[in-house]
């Protein structure tokens, strides 16, 4: 066997170590999610099961927002509107064509993905702040549209709106008709979506995004089709949101148009940053912050608006001093503890995700 020169050998060793760490992180993610999918329905009461279903659905959508910001530095402020697009599609197909639940979820993902790509296209001519503004305008437009149209609830016509007592709930999958079963089902979809995102990060699109993040000129010079990979990122983020919307619709049974304001998209982005956009743990935390923390505060009789203040302060903190969010701080803490237990020192500034 030919011996590698020392520099190349060192590089190959480091590459192998990074790959091993990444694979370990992927297995950890899947293990944690499968464990949660099995254990949570056994531990939580009815109220908390419903809350956690919403948290899982929102976390699925957050994974798209985190992908755009974490991988490409793009701020999308219409992610919750895309959740609505997915929810609308799933409800319409379920009530109108009685498609199996899984097909409704996939169709919802595809519809939101197409919308996400269309949303992204005019914005691709622009950078940074203008993209945030374009998507905010879209979220504002969607808020008006869905408030006027409402979500399908088993009625006739293209909009599928029913009157009064004729309203029906979306049919759940046969395997997960109970609330507990549906929580497991929602967690499995979350695992699948996070797996899909992680797979993208580790393959060709991930490498292309990393180059684009460094600079579009550099990416172009390296032969990366910038437009194609940016559009792909928008499409994938939209797919995540659409699947999240369908899971949310299945969990609640019906969706309310008034709950899909532009403010929700803004909050979703803010808490994605607070949770941490560079690690799957941040996605889970963002879902919990958006749905479970308000429910927890309600349980303890604490005013929910104190949570909004805390979220705002956390966003400023995350942007100024903790750019990897709560997930990054937790992972650093765990790594430091593990090193201390082993009796070795932590190298400052080394990322452990």
């Amino acid at each position, binding site marked *: 066997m030919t011996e590698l020169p020392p520099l190349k050998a060192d590089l190959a060793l480091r590459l192998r170590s990074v790959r091993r760490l990444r694979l370990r992180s992927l297995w950890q993610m899947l293990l944690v999610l499968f464990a949660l999918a099995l254990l949570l329905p056994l531990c939580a009461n009815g109220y908390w099961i419903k809350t956690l279903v919403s948290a899982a659905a929102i976390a699925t959508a957050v994974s798209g927002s985190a992908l755009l910001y974490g991988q490409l*530095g793009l*701020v999308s402020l219409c992610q919750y509107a895309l959740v609505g697009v997915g929810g609308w599609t799933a409800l319409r197909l379920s009530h109108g064509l009685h498609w199996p639940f899984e097909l409704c979820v996939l169709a919802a993902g595809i519809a939101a993905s197409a919308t996400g790509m269309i949303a992204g296209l*005019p*914005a691709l*001519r*622009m*950078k*940074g*702040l*203008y*993209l*945030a*503004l*374009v998507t*905010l*305008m*879209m979220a*504002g*437009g969607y808020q*008006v*549209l869905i*408030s*006027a149209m409402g979500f399908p609830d088993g009625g006739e016509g293209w909009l599928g709106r029913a009157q009064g007592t004729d309203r029906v709930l979306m049919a759940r999958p046969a395997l997960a008709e109970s609330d507990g079963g549906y929580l497991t089902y929602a967690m499995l979809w979350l695992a699948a979506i996070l797996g899909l995102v992680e797979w993208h990060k580790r393959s060709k699109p991930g490498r292309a995004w990393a180059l684009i993040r460094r600079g579009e000129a550099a990416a172009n010079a390296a032969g990366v089709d910038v437009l194609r990979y940016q559009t792909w990122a928008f499409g994938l983020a939209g797919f995540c949101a659409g699947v999240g919307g369908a899971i949310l619709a299945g969990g609640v049974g019906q969706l309310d148009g008034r709950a899909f*304001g*532009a*403010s929700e998209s*803004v*909050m979703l*982005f*803010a808490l994605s*940053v607070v949770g941490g956009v560079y690690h799957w743990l941040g996605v889970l935390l963002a879902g919990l912050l958006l749905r479970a923390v308000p429910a927890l505060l309600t349980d303890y009789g604490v*005013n929910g*608006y*104190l*949570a*909004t*203040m*805390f*979220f*705002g*302060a*956390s*966003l*400023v903190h995350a*942007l*100024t*001093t903790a750019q990897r969010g709560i997930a990054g701080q937790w992972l650093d803490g765990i790594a430091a503890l593990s090193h201390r237990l082993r009796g070795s020192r932590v190298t400052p500034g080394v990322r452990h995700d």
Partner: protein
Amino acid sequence: MLELLPFLISGLGVGSVYALSGVGLVVLYRASGVLNFAFGALGALGAYVAWTVLDAGLPMWAAWLASVATAMGLSLLYGWFIAPLLAERDSTIRSIGTLGLALVLMGFTEWYWGSSPRRLILPTDAIGIDLADVRLTGTRIISLVVALAMMAAIALLLARTRIGLKMRALANDRGLSAVLGVYVLRVDTVAWLLSGAFAGVSGLLLANIVRLQATLLTFLVIPAFAAAILGRLHSLPATVVAGLVIGVLEATAILLPGFAPFRTAVPFLLALLAIILFPNTQRLA
């Protein structure tokens, strides 16, 4: 034409506030590269303070003063203590930072004053003039006059004063301006103060025209972003015209058959259309 008049007048009232908010946003963006997402929240908090002042039986001028001073003070505090922490980051992150301020202020306002909507009734609501069967209240007249006066004042400040020149220099190139001896922090302070003043006035007027509710007012700034986009985040006259046009079109759209439920989407549609049609948007970002 006569049937349009009430909607036209109503649209001009809201449009003048959109224009005022748009100018407040553009002034700060031009000077410091920050698009203030907390603009609506600052205005909302100022409006609640004004409501408290009026509730205590104090005169209207005290309410105006309290509203504007609160918004200016909070804007300045952010500009002094938080904004410098993000000064080296790109414009998007600097702007997203103000989302944090918006959430803190909105949460505080809802927690302290409650989330139930209130009416902010100003003494000038009771007086007014009748114009072709349309009642134009004193507050609407004041809002139009104040909006026009503030926009004229800011245009003069930017074009004719030394601090205006420095603000324009900073908008052009912050680093180079600093090298040439412009005190960046001092100019930033003025920009945050001015933006706060615009937020205070806009918040009070919107609370009177629409209703006093923190979440609503915080996110009512989104149509003002549309005005700022149409002004290409740079031109004050274009922002003013855009704000007025948005207000008028939004109000008159109610007359279009079948479009009434969607009329509040007018600002967003106009902004998106403008973004698609702008020949070169790269330089704006």
